[in-house]
């Protein structure tokens, strides 16, 4: 299965891989420097083993023709929705939300994996019928298809994943040429549904949104994360404090510092210059993704590439926006950077999809 065509190997997007590899390296470094010697290094080692698992998954994804994956999308879809149902039934509850499934020693977060399934499903739904432009029926069918798992994810509640999926959907729809008028109508419909969403939200999620509106509403409660992250990032100044000087992160002021808020740790240690380099790597990765999407002629490949790139872009922007206080806190990991197995493996699989599409562009 892992046997690859020589011709395919010639078309490996090395700059994409390099950008991703660089980010992963920085992630391991940050995790290790959080508390070197004790818990920190254990975190870094565990993350490294997830990188290993992720790389294997990447190879598997690369070796399979992505078109077959799109064809299998209905099966993935059923599997994904099934997992989401399982997690809502018997998943483990962590800080008020049920997101994890225990499978032996591994805990696993189905909504992470669902991002990929979501894109595959979207691609499948938009390309299974040859029609140009897209008919209203196809659009409605697509919405119905992705609406069910979306609802399940919001219910979990995994607001972060749900929030990522919306711009991804929008990006793909724009890509396939849905008229702006239709998109505008959809946006209005979405806005109209917001009060409804408010009712579905858990109190802690409502707090987070309110805090976004007024960060000093409760400086010791919900806004604490935001304020602490801002202080961590800002105190890094231009050149950073280095590993040992990063008191904010190392003294445990920063909650979730190895997961969602890891960028604050990095920015505190390496300053604006370091953050510039890291963000440059993300920008490179995302732009390569868009380039692959733009240059692919095969419809499934380019929609898929656009979707995957949109996931990367949305997740990176939303995470960084929330850590720097531009957006409300919604609990999204920074792809390839945050500690967490599901996120790392899924991110590498997504990367594999991009590579795979690139390699098969010239077939």
């Amino acid at each position, binding site marked *: 299965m892992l046997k690859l065509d020589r011709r395919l190997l010639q078309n490996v997007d090395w700059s994409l891989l390099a950008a991703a590899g660089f980010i992963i390296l920085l992630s391991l470094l940050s995790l290790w420097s959080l508390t070197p010697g004790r818990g920190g290094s254990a975190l870094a080692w565990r993350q490294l083993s997830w990188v290993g698992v992720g790389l294997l998954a990447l190879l598997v994804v690369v070796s399979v023709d992505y078109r077959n994956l799109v064809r299998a999308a209905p099966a993935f879809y059923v599997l994904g929705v099934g997992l989401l149902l399982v997690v809502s039934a018997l998943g483990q509850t962590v800080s008020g939300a049920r997101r994890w499934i225990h499978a032996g020693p591994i805990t696993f977060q189905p909504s992470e994996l669902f991002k990929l399934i979501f894109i595959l499903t979207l691609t499948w739904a938009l390309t299974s019928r040859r029609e140009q432009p897209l008919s209203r029926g196809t659009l409605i069918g697509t919405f119905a298809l992705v609406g069910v798992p979306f609802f399940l994810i919001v219910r979990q509640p995994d607001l972060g994943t749900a929030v990522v999926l919306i711009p991804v959907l929008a990006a793909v729809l724009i890509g396939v040429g849905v008229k702006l008028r239709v998109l505008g109508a959809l946006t209005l419909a979405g806005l109209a549904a917001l009060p409804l969403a408010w009712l579905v939200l858990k109190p802690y999620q409502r707090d987070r949104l309110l805090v976004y509106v007024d960060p000093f509403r409760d400086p010791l409660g919900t806004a604490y994360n935001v304020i602490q992250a801002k*202080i961590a990032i800002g105190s890094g100044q231009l050149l950073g404090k280095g590993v040992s000087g990063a008191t904010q992160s190392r003294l445990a002021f920063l909650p979730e510092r190895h997961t969602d808020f890891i960028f604050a740790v990095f920015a505190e240690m390496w300053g604006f210059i370091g953050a510039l380099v890291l963000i440059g790597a993300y920008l490179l990765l995302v732009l390569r993704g868009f380039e692959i999407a733009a240059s692919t002629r095969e419809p499934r490949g380019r929609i898929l590439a656009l979707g995957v790139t949109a996931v990367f872009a949305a997740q990176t922007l939303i995470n960084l926006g929330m850590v720097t206080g*531009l957006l409300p806190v919604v609990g999204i990991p920074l792809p390839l950077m945050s500690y967490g197995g599901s996120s790392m493996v899924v991110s590498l699989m997504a990367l594999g999809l991009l590579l795979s599409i690139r390699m098969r562009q010239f077939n």
Partner: protein
Amino acid sequence: MDLAPLPGARREAWSRRVLALAAITAVGFVGLLGQLWYLQVLEGGRLQELSEKNRIRIRPVVAPRGILFDRNGLALVDNRPAFTLSLIPREMEDRDTVLARLSVLLKIPLAELEGSLDRVPVDPMRVVRVRRGLSLEEVTKVEERKLELPGVLVEVEPQRVYPTSTFAAHLLGFVREVSDEQMKQGRYRRGDMIGQSGLERVLDEYLRGRDGGERIEVDALGRPVQVMKREEPYPGAQVVTTVDRRIQEAAERAMAGRAGAVIVMDPRNGDVLAMTSSPAFPLDRFTGNLDREEWLRVVRDPMTPLMNRALQSQYAPGSLFKVIVTAAGLQEGSLTPMDRTYCNGEYRLGAWTFKDWRAGGHGHVDLRSALVQSCNIFFYQAGLKVGPEAIARYARSFGLGAPSGIDLGSEKPGLVPFVEWRRHRSGRGWQSGDTINMSIGQGPLLVTPLQVARMMAAVANGGILWKPRLVQRVELADGSLAYSASSKMTGRVDLSPVVWSFLRHALSGAVNEGGTGAAARIPGVEIAGKTGTAQSVAKSDSAKGQDHAWFASFAPAEDPEYVVVVLVERGGRGGQVAAPIARQIYQAIFLEKVAMVGLGEGS
């Protein structure tokens, strides 16, 4: 079913749209960089400063407990800063290690530390108090190892401080952290210090005040940098008691080493000037951090130091009761001052022989000399003349057999038997022997020292029974009056003025004319008093035969200002044991007068 590649025009449109999306994304990234520039470069200096002193804590600011003053404005109890060991769960990265280190360092059982953390709801910002009243030595130990003990903190909080360990222990009472049991009442918060006995308990609502709190930022070493928000505590109310600290101290000094009680009361208004019960318990070791061993020792002590003997212990009044018999007899007309008898030390009634306390008797006695000499034989006959019903009625009118109404709680009512009671209780009727026992204050009669003081005050002031007053007023921190109590009369004994006069003169004679109370005599002050020796109910062979010694008195006899009642448990004879103690107290009260008389005699 592969799809064919799309024609060129559409491809270009696709590329354009993807490019547009890429541009939107790039704009997002640029925006991010802008925000980072703002945070790290423009605001960097300020945020850097913030990060250096960045630690936020919520800490309660304990309201200083109200102070209790004596009638002259001297403090009976005060507050001083004390060290409290606290934990901040959020800052304890490795909770188990820190707790283990702390446990070894201060020799606190690990379970106790864990317990105090487990008892509070999880609120990582809040400070949890685990031990109060740390010694300076312990504080030094913790401060020295501060870096190894993240999340451990020593705070300064006001704590009760007492003039001496046992000063007015029963009166004041001790203050301690609210117990699990008391938490269930829902009136307190975990960690509140509340009064557990005495005035501290009765006046707790006033004394406690209202705690404040503050949000503080501390630096990396835990030093407070800035108070972000502070809610001032409202200090507890000041209480002005009726106690006279000087007299209280004198009473305790005089009782040192004895078991019993002393009450000093102002007969003109019922003010309690001193109230002591001994043995006392060490207030300072119960306050703040409980010394468990000491607590167990006190609770298990057969001498029951926690009991306030002045109002919770009941004794037979002994010869004190002769005052009641005399009052009843004279007022009812069954006795006259001219009644005489010959006392040979024995009185026969049927098959029974009742003895006088003095072998050989007192010889010829009249009512006055019988009272002065405390002749039992005379009072056996007098009691039979007056009759048990009248005696019981007068005893009740003097406030015996009912609580005095003092605002200190758990007061015993005493016991005055009367005819029906005796018949009902034991089946056999009231007999003359019972009357004879009663007339010298023995038998089932029971009184508390406080009741005796009230009774003596009535003799001194001509019949007014006061509700004993302990608290004059309570003043809130803003100076307003929260409570004030004026003297309250709760009963009146109606005797003709000649009877009062007779009683006062006879009691003065008991002290000043070589009577049983002679040991209380002080030159320069005329003291009037009555001794009593109560047969104790023998609980064991070793205690058998040791009588309780009473001395109930007032002075100056002509214009009484002080009532002093002394009870010494198993002390022996009242005249020998209790009267000298009263004398010591009077000496302290009339210090100046006594000194002037001494000078006059010397020159």
